[in-house]
């Protein structure tokens, strides 16, 4: 892959944030970011920020909610086809 241009970085970072960037494109992105201060700052928006927000909102369904849901579902009779 040839050298990346700055204006190509946002789209790649977008894919990288979602984990859908192929390895060779990721290596090209890393190489560009290592030598470009402007795009290095973008990494914050696309990667560091989402990781922070993901971690701060990482909850699991409380057990009592699942139990209540199961009871509700068991009491519901779907219309038979």
């Amino acid at each position, binding site marked *: 892959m040839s050298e990346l241009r700055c204006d190509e970085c946002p789209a790649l970072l*977008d894919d990288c944030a*979602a984990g859908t960037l192929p390895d060779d494109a990721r290596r090209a992105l890393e190489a560009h970011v290592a030598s470009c201060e402007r795009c290095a700052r973008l990494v914050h928006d696309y990667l560091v920020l*989402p990781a*922070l927000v993901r971690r701060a909102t*990482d909850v699991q369904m409380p057990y009592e909610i699942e139990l209540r849901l199961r009871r*509700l579902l068991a009491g519901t009779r*779907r*219309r038979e086809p």
Partner: protein
Amino acid sequence: MTLAGPTTESATSDEALADDARRGARNAFVVLVARYRDRIYRLAFRMSRNASDAEEIAQDTFLHAHRAIGSFHGESRFGTWLYRIAVNEALMRQRSARRRPLESIDVLMPRFADVGATGGDQAESADELVDAKRVIRRVREALDELDADHRAALVLRDLEELSAEDAADILGISAEALRQRAHRARMKMRVMLADILADRA
């Protein structure tokens, strides 16, 4: 993550289970609930930032899906279909209901501390715990400041890590509009959380 659910070679696919549920097999739907409960609850929590709302949204999502399973014929993946129901439940509630206040963050602490800055070190210092609480509160306040459409784009794209196409499909907008909304939401979040992000540079 993907919407395809945790699968091994031998695991029954979501779509096969949905098909069984559609034919009246109650256990099949229970298995789907077990597969998706945490993802749907987390999505609901991120869309509402409030545990009480998240409980109701998650519960209504599964009840709605159970009633409507007869109309699921596998045009999309089951996960996409279920996410769409959950997002609509969350957006509907936001438009109609009074907003509940942000509540105590203590419910979140154990998991955040588990994967905190110390990389899961058991001996979390009091200072680090206070800092983690502060960060969680600030993040939730920042999410709260976004309008519902921007928050939905950010949640699906960056937090649930769906592809732009799947996220756009769920919200009923183009992939390009989805990217723009997520981008704008990130920029707003970055400004609101600038000091915290600077600490982590």
